[in-house]
């Protein structure tokens, strides 16, 4: 819970969510995302810290009864992670979407090649 308070103070953290294998919301702290596997997302429910790829596998919802899942791959986390719904239609939406896109590209193959 300490980390959450810290993140909110620094101001750059923003809320994200996914709907994979159950829904989950978290706080993304860009300043902690220094390597692909760095825990930089804090779950808003249990306060656990996750890397983007492990966050999309994390959820507190009971397992599905009737739903079959096709094509889920945690490595494709950038396809599943969105800014929190609550930002949609607000003045922050554009800026946060852009920031999240930057985070998704930070360690993408495309960027790796560029820096090499």
């Amino acid at each position, binding site marked *: 819970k300490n980390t959450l308070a810290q993140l909110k103070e620094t101001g750059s953290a923003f809320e994200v969510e996914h*709907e*994979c294998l159950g829904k989950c919301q978290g706080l993304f702290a860009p300043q902690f995302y220094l390597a692909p596997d760095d825990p930089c997302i804090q779950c808003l429910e249990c306060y656990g810290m996750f890397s983007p790829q492990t966050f999309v596998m994390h959820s507190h919802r009971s397992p*599905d*009864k*009737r*739903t*079959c*899942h*096709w*094509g*889920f*791959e945690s490595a*494709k986390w950038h*396809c*599943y992670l*969105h800014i929190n719904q609550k930002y*949609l239609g607000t003045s922050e939406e554009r800026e946060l979407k852009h920031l999240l896109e930057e985070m998704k590209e930070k360690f993408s193959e495309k960027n790796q090649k560029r820096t090499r």
Partner: protein
Amino acid sequence: VLQPPVSTHPGPEFWCSIAYFEQDVQVGEIFKVPSSCPSVVVDGYVDPSGGARFCLGQLSNVQRCAASERARLHIGKGVQLERRGEGDVWMRCRSDHAVFVQSFYLDREAGRAPGDAVHKVYPGAHIKVFDLRQCHRQMQQQAATAQAAATAQAAAVAGSIPGPGSVGGIAPAIGLSVAAGLGVDDLRRLCLVRLSFVKGWGPDYPRASITCTPCWIEVHLHRALQLLDHVLHALPDAHA
């Protein structure tokens, strides 16, 4: 491996037609895809230029509810449906939100009873959602079962109702047509695929059926419907 076609009958002019719904209301015109265009995109945009594209963003509904309004914003690049060979169908989820599919083919692939499961297809996934050969086998079996049930019911009605109703075959004829009618609706269901954008349904979601979801489509597969026609005509007493 090249398999012989399921039927040598000439193919349909349009390989599928797509109807768009918001909850239980159909919105806009039915979109037909010519057989010369094996691939069609259904997306959330407004400008249908460039190839076979059904743009849901341009469809208006004066009674549109807030849930549909919101969900439609997330359809984005939607899905691509591709006919392969005689009438198999593949789907690619191009949206950045999952789509939820009702498909007897996927039920079987997942080891579920027909109609039992809701199939969530993740962004970026590319999967087969319909198999013509399997559908044909299924409709032949189901038609035969419905026929047998109708015949048995007709016989039971003829044998159990005393009085003028059973004389001259009036009551049996009613029994037969009712049972056959139910069968045909079930059989037609084999020839379509339904998919909901963004929102799921069933016991895992707050919506009981696909007709409660905010934006969904029904894809009628014409080759399969053609085969169904032949199957029904091949049954004895099909026009009773």
